[in-house]
């Protein structure tokens, strides 16, 4: 209540203030730069008020002010200046803001503000303006291509889908490499709600996606162990520190923004345009592929005969067949905030609404997010109380990915000559599930799209309370409490596919009994933090800052879920709508962490800084003997331009930094003790699960106990240089780091002959070495000419290597399928893709079978690794007067990924890659046949059997040629183009609008990929946004480009 009351007070105050000043008169003058050139568009503000104006083209201004007031002159790239309004003519010269970098204040771990130059580690800070320039609804997406050493991967551009952030490569084999998000000093949940099921995957986003980007004041990315040691295990993959906007004293600020954009499909697999429906070179009307004869344009019947009639169409290629299926999607993001405050209190209230409807021609892919945030702070005597509360409500529907009856799988098995949009009326007698043209495990995509579905909803509350007491001038004590609680519900259903008795598809594998599943999940995190901070000036040159802290963190979760394997009444989805009983399961988890820590910085002459951190954690998830873990770090920073001011003409600011740090990492709950589990046998497709027929079964779990489990330990050192040359003409920020995570904890796969299939164990070491650099060129500073141009280039390379692996293990399987797997091997990059290859004779010739098709070797081979060789972002900002143009490229080079889109379009003969030799018979070059005699002796004979048209489909889908389904995932994307216009103050005149801007925004406008990728946007993944996601995609939904506009106004 108190906070709200303050808000009203602020309102009143502002009104009163405006009424009191009466003795104003006009003050005028000219503003120029150092060289005397007049500066247009300089903001002139009366300090402590919202009254202001701008200079005109000649740098002149006029404003009404009283003699006691102070004018503030500010301009981008220049140092702000304050001048008393005592005289009525004021001419001002603004100076270049050459010490920009030096003065930057950043928030460090623990929420303590520091001058950036005191940091001995790499930290990138993104401010609100940079973050929201392109009006991205998701904070992680907004970072894409902007921060060196940080790779943002979006599972897809489906509405609401998650975006993952990987900082300096993969450091954990366990599969969680996401940074810890800390909002105003409190860690929040960043879990992902997704399924990577091969038979119907979905993605409903990550916890970080719940943050309203407009609420963010600054966002700092802490990359190394030294920077993150104070957050303990959870920060081992980096920290993203978010400071939210607060109300500012003396101002009532209302801001509103709207961003509306339209999305369309970015990339579809390239189809061949010469051959149509059929198989083995013949025209079969039931085939789900394009292995038929060459197009001849002749009008022929197609589809099944229904009621003695049949459809006809020309036998010719359908251009942009897939594109026609999709429609234009829409995104709208609206946000509103009101903030203000008086001397010691401030308050801010914000609301945002994001609505997305994807490109599927239905509402089956849509997402909505509402966020409501309230924050306030008040100081009474020496105690400051700050609080924030956020309520987030998200919900939506996703279209399943994967094999089986999914929209994409249905679509990709439509021959190149069939117009997809014909199927739109899926109740039409020719196109319903009974008579759909093919019986081969796929059906009308419109049926799948409209009748299968999902519904997701989440309510989340997170917030914090901070009480800070200043004990004396040099020390204070802080208590912070954080809470993050969310409840999610998810329902997923598949409609029954029941072909009418006697219809063409009756008894085919397309028929499905349907299914329904629903789950409810509650997650809760509580965090307590005590801090004692002191800041002592030991002598004129020596200063000491130190913080002592105690942290308690508890995370609990519970879920219940049920499934039922059939659905009866069409169009209705429920557990009850089945001949079977639903099966339910439940799960509860709890974990705790206690930590005590200290961080101490000693600075000498404000140019040499040394910081040490030390922390001890106690983890509930580790065995009692190993649960206490001590670690820490040391970092140093030297602002050498302060030591040698003589070089400032060339190097106007320079700082060297070096650090070493360690972090301990624990594991998931319940990994140590043996367990007994329900009798449940996986059959490959389906399970045999107790209880049934009155019998129950429990078994010895397949995970062996591990009472000796130790924590993982990340050890990292880093060197860096920040420097600005020639009055900030060039700014550079480069780092080199070398980190190792030893005692990697993973589910160590055990040979089943041991009686177990896994053990949670310490198995190896991952090393990450990398270089990251950020260079900014301020080609033309936006001043006299009104034209400005700067370019930012960030570049990073990271080499993740599994340096050591338990010698008992040959390799580690990280995911994928049995044919093509994601694996890790000692001494090799993380992670590798391994798959089938053709068998070869001793001379290296490919062994083929009786049809001339390569035979699969019993030995799999590594195709290559999944890592980018380098990633790069190039951004340009151009401005002319009130116009600005920003455009950025995201460049990623190297790495492999599996693509089921490649696999399936090669299987169906739709892919442009399936027309080698114009589909005429060809002999696999240098092939041999193999004969094994009864005595086991083997002879090889040169092969003369060509792969004839009847077997070309077998050739293109041969297991031996699995390498063809693994593509180079390099790309260059025109990530963002933003054209902005800021309305001049003059135009706004006396309207209540303080500032108004308008932008046109394009995103992912162009995509360039290497020749081997004729299929997809290589950013897509259906295996989540972490290590497993490196495997690739399993019939993902297509990604999009978007074009839109935004309006931002401040009142």
């Amino acid at each position: 209540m108190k906070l709200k009351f303050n808000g009203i007070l602020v309102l009143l105050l502002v009104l009163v203030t405006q009424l009191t000043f009466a003795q104003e008169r006009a003050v005028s003058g000219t503003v120029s730069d150092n060289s005397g050139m007049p500066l247009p568009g300089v903001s002139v503000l009366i300090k402590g008020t919202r009254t202001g104006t701008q200079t005109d083209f000649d740098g002149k201004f006029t404003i009404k002010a009283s003699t006691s007031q102070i004018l503030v002159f500010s301009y981008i790239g220049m140092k702000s200046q304050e001048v008393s309004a005592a005289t009525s003519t004021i001419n001002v010269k603004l100076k270049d803001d050459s010490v920009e970098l030096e003065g930057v204040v950043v928030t460090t771990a623990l929420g303590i503000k520091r001058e950036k130059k005191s940091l001995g580690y790499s930290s990138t800070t993104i401010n609100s303006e940079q973050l929201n320039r392109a009006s991205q609804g998701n904070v992680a997406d907004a970072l894409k291509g902007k921060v060196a050493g940080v790779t943002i991967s979006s599972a897809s551009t489906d509405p609401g889908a998650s975006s993952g952030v990987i900082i300096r490569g993969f450091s954990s084999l366990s599969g969680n490499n996401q940074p810890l998000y800390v909002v105003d000093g409190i860690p929040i949940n960043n879990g992902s709600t997704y399924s990577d099921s091969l038979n119907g995957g979905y993605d409903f986003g990550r916890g970080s996606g719940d943050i309203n980007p407009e609420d963010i004041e600054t966002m700092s990315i802490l990359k190394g162990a030294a920077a993150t040691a104070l957050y303990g295990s959870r920060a081992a993959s980096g920290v993203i520190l978010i400071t939210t906007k607060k109300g500012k004293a003396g101002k009532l600020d209302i801001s509103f923004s709207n961003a509306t954009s339209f999305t369309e499909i970015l990339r579809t697999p390239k189809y061949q345009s010469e051959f149509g429906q059929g198989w083995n070179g013949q025209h079969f009307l039931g085939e789900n592929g394009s292995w038929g004869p060459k197009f001849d344009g002749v009008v022929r019947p197609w589809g099944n005969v229904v009621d003695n009639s049949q459809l006809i169409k020309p036998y010719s290629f359908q251009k942009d067949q897939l594109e026609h299926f999709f429609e234009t999607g829409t995104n709208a993001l609206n946000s509103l905030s009101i903030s203000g405050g008086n001397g010691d209190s401030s308050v801010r209230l914000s609301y945002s609404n994001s609505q997305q409807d994807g490109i599927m021609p239905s509402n089956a892919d849509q997402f909505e997010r509402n966020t409501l945030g309230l924050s306030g702070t008040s100081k009474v005597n020496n105690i400051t109380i700050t609080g924030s509360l956020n309520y987030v409500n998200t919900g939506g529907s996703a279209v399943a990915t994967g094999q089986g009856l999914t929209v994409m799988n249905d679509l990709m098995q439509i021959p190149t000559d069939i117009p997809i949009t014909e199927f739109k009326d899926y109740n039409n007698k020719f196109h319903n599930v009974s008579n759909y043209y093919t019986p081969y495990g796929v059906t009308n995509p419109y049926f799948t799209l409209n009748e299968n579905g999902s519904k997701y909803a989440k309510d989340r509350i997170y917030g914090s309370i901070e009480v800070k007491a200043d004990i004396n001038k040099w020390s204070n004590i802080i208590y912070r409490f954080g809470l993050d609680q969310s409840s999610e519900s998810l329902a997923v259903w598949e409609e029954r596919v029941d072909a009418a008795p006697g219809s063409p598809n009756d008894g085919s594998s397309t028929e499905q009994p349907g299914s329904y599943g629903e789950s409810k999940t509650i997650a809760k995190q509580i965090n307590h933090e005590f801090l004692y901070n002191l800041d002592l000036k030991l002598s004129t040159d020596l200063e000491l800052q130190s913080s002592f802290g105690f942290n308690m963190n508890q995370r609990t979760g519970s879920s219940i879920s049920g499934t039922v394997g059939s659905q009866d009444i069409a169009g209705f989805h429920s557990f009850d709508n089945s001949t079977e009983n639903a099966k339910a399961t439940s799960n509860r988890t709890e974990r705790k962490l206690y930590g005590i820590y200290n961080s101490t910085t000693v600075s000498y002459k404000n140019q040499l800084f040394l910081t040490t951190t030390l922390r001890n954690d106690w983890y509930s998830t580790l065995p009692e003997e190993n649960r206490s873990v001590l670690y820490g770090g040391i970092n140093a920073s030297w602002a050498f331009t302060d030591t040698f001011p003589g070089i400032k003409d060339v190097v106007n600011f320079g700082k060297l930094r070096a650090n070493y740090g360690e972090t301990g990492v624990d594991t998931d709950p319940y990994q140590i003790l043996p367990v007994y589990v329900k009798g449940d046998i996986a059959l490959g497709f389906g399970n045999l699960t107790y209880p049934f027929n009155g019998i129950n079964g429990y078994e010895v779990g397949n995970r062996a106990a591990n009472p000796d489990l130790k924590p993982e330990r990340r050890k990292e050192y880093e060197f860096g240089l920040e420097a600005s040359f020639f009055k900030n003409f060039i700014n550079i920020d480069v780092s080199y780091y070398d980190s190792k995570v030893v005692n990697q904890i993973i589910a160590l796969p055990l040979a089943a002959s041991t009686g177990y299939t896994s053990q949670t164990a310490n198995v190896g070491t991952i090393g990450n070495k990398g270089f990251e650099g950020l260079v900014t060129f301020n080609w033309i500073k936006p001043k006299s000419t009104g034209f400005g141009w700067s370019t930012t280039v960030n570049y990073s390379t990271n080499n993740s290597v599994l340096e050591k692996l338990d010698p008992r293990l040959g390799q580690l399987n990280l995911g994928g399928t049995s044919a093509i797997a994601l694996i890790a091997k000692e001494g090799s990059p993380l992670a590798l893709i391994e798959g089938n290859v053709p068998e070869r004779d001793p001379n290296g010739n490919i062994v083929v079978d009786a049809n001339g098709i390569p035979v699969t070797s019993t030995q799999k081979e590594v195709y290559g690794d999944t890592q980018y060789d380098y990633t790069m972002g190039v951004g340009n900002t151009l401005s002319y007067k009130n116009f600005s143009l920003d455009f950025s490229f995201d460049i990623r080079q190297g790495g492999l990924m599996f693509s089921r889109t490649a696999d399936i379009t090669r299987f169906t003969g739709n892919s442009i890659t399936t027309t080698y030799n114009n589909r005429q018979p060809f002999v696999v070059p240098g092939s041999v046949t193999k004969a094994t005699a009864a005595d086991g002796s083997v002879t090889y004979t040169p092969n003369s059997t060509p792969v004839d048209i009847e077997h070309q489909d077998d050739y293109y889908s041969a297991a031996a040629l699995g390498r063809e389904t693994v593509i180079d995932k390099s790309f260059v994307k025109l990530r963002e183009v933003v054209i902005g216009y800021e309305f001049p103050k003059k135009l706004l005149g006396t309207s209540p609008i303080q500032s108004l801007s308008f932008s046109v925004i394009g995103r992912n406008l162009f995509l360039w990929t290497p020749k081997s990728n004729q299929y997809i946007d290589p950013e897509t993944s259906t295996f989540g946004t972490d290590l497993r996601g490196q495997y690739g995609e399993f019939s993902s939904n297509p990604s999009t480009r978007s074009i839109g506009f935004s309006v931002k106004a401040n009142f």
Partner: protein
Amino acid sequence: MKNISKILTIIFSIGILTSCDGDLDVNTDPNTPGNITPALALASAEASIISMTGGEFANLGGFYAQYYTQAPSAGQYDLLDEYNLSTSFGDRAWNELYSGGLNDLKYVQTEASKDGNTGQFLIATLLQSYTFQVLVDVFGDVPYTEALGGVSNINPRPTPGDEIYKDLLVKIDAALAAYNSKPVASGFGTQDVIYGGDMTHWVKFANTLKLKIYLRMAYTPLANPAAVQALLAQNNFITADAAFAKFGTELSQRNPFYEVNLSSSPGLGDINHIASNTLLQFYQLNNDPRRDAVYRPNTATIPAYLGLDQGNGENLTNTAISYARPNIVAQTPVYLLSVAESNFLKAEALIRYSGQVGAKAEYDLGVENSFRAYKLPVTGAAVLTGAGGAYEFAPGLPTEQAVRQVIVQKWAALANLNNIEAYIEATRTKFPEVVPFGTQDYSIGNRIPSRTSILTGTTIPSILFYPQNEVDRNTSIKQRTSITQKVWWDQKN
């Protein structure tokens, strides 16, 4: 102010002190029980074993014994039907049998020993022996003496198959002896899905299993006529099928072959398996009514029972519904040992080691019990085995020819019931013979090389690759070079 800092210091210290222990002991999984009973583990073990022998292996055996072949216009098992198996083919069965069935049986044995329950120990030992025998029969030499040791030995070396066989007999005899000297009822009740915990049945099972093990050694130097004769003299073999017959009709409760291959969800939808002419023609040419029990008629046109020559599936105008398909439903039991099989084992033993005396009677009974298993009137069997019938036992033939009659009938009696055993026995005895396509006589029981075989001549696979998972994880296992290598007992030329 001083007070506040004092209070906070105290809270601080208390926090740190209490943090270390007690409060952090929250790492016992609340979602799983702290302990279970041997009865619960036994039910799980039985389900693990039958899920594999009646699922993965029933599929493998179905193709290799030439009961089924791959349907046209589908291709899930193309590679299997071509003998072009990948090394990961055996992964699931191997994992489930070792870490599921055998590990649970080990638990039952441990608990039974503690409780002095000789009945429970015997049942666990028998199922364990059964499982190891299957593992040897399809994978060759497998980890045995070093197996199931948990993390104390994560690279168990394989034990030669003949040594495993010898030891299985020792273990069975020891468990039997312990039970006989101090019989304790298992008390498993319905948790023993196979025999309801009835020890009488399990003792009979022990003898039948031993007979099966001994006969597998028939072509090897380990053949032991005296032991077989002793078993025959004791004549205490199974009188009730050892079958897992409590499947339900709902999802996750159904016959594993049905769930995976015939159900449309989560299974593959009944589009891959169709009748192979090898068995279909055998039944048909001999007017054997079992045709209608083993296969379902097609739903399209005449003839109702259409099959394809093994591996001849590259015909795109048809789908599975045009052919006869395996008649397996959700509740079809999975058999570990059937009475008919026991009859044929005895018949072979009598032929080999008792001068064929009584062999015909067991042979006839075998066919009769096969009809019973398929729920057909036994009069049909009598017609076939009676004088002048197609299957009339010819007495006095040389041993191998006499055995041939038994094995061909056993092959015809195991379809859908124990496909993998039919394949293993065919590998051991070379009956029904594999003959070049075109020269086969389906009526007498002839197999052909798959029409899409990638192997030469009449070679068909005689062993599986070691599962890729095991090779990847167990450094003591070296992948074999070929699936034409031989299991240790495969010594007949």
